[in-house]
């Protein structure tokens, strides 16, 4: 299966700009299923972690108010072109995914 994580990390000067898009329903638990009328249980990413050179550079804690197929952008110093960036997430049902990408 294709990864749920899409990432673009670009180094410019001493800063690396990271943009990531993750495929996830991010169900809030407040929405009813149109066919059954029953609420769709909450299903959302709780923790998203970015690591560079063995060190965490950014951690997101998300609640159900983050939009479906979440997007996030941040910037960190110390990354170089060709370096590896490891991304991982875990959701409230214990599902998870991870990916190692190269900084461009």
């Amino acid at each position, binding site marked *: 299966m294709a990864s749920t994580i899409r990432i*673009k990390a670009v180094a410019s000067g001493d800063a690396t700009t990271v943009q990531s898009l993750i495929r996830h329903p991010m169900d809030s638990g407040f929405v009813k299923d149109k066919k059954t009328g029953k609420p769709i249980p909450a299903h959302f990413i709780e923790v998203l972690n970015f690591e560079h050179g063995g060190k965490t550079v950014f951690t997101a804690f998300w609640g159900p108010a983050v939009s479906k197929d979440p997007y996030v952008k941040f910037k960190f110093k110390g990354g170089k072109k060709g370096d590896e960036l490891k991304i991982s997430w875990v959701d409230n049902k214990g599902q998870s995914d991870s990916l190692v990408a190269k900084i461009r």
Partner: protein
Amino acid sequence: MYEFSDAPNMARRTILKGAVAGGLAGLTGLGLSSFPFPAYAAADAKEWPADAFKQKSEADVLKALYGKTAEASDKISLDAPEIAENGAVVPIAVSSTLPNVTGIAILVLNNPNVLAAAYKIPAGTEALASNRLKMAKTSKVVAVMESNGKLYSASKQVKVTVGGCGG
């Protein structure tokens, strides 16, 4: 209900495929790096601040997350639309010129649970975060930054024409 469309991203997905393949090949090597940290710091659900995400007011969220209150600051920039046509996807970006920012929180005061997202900012990472949030109705959005151990905040009213929490 708004549906996220993949179509405009198809081109980009194709471009990214190469990067993804390269990344997977590198996976084996990464776990072996010698650091005083665990082999790698994967996302850990135990770190998730469950209590903060249950709170119904700004004060209670900040108490649960940081154990203190925030003062208003003009050094925080909160970029959000004046009017959000679709409450399911409201782009919100925050950044700051405050020194030594270690944490960022974004709150939507009229949502069922006020805290939308919180970010941990290690040394070397800029005081900046951009994301997309759901808004149930028109609300004040508050950005909070922890700088040198103190909390600062900025807010902006965002008008929502179609709420993002109904079905």
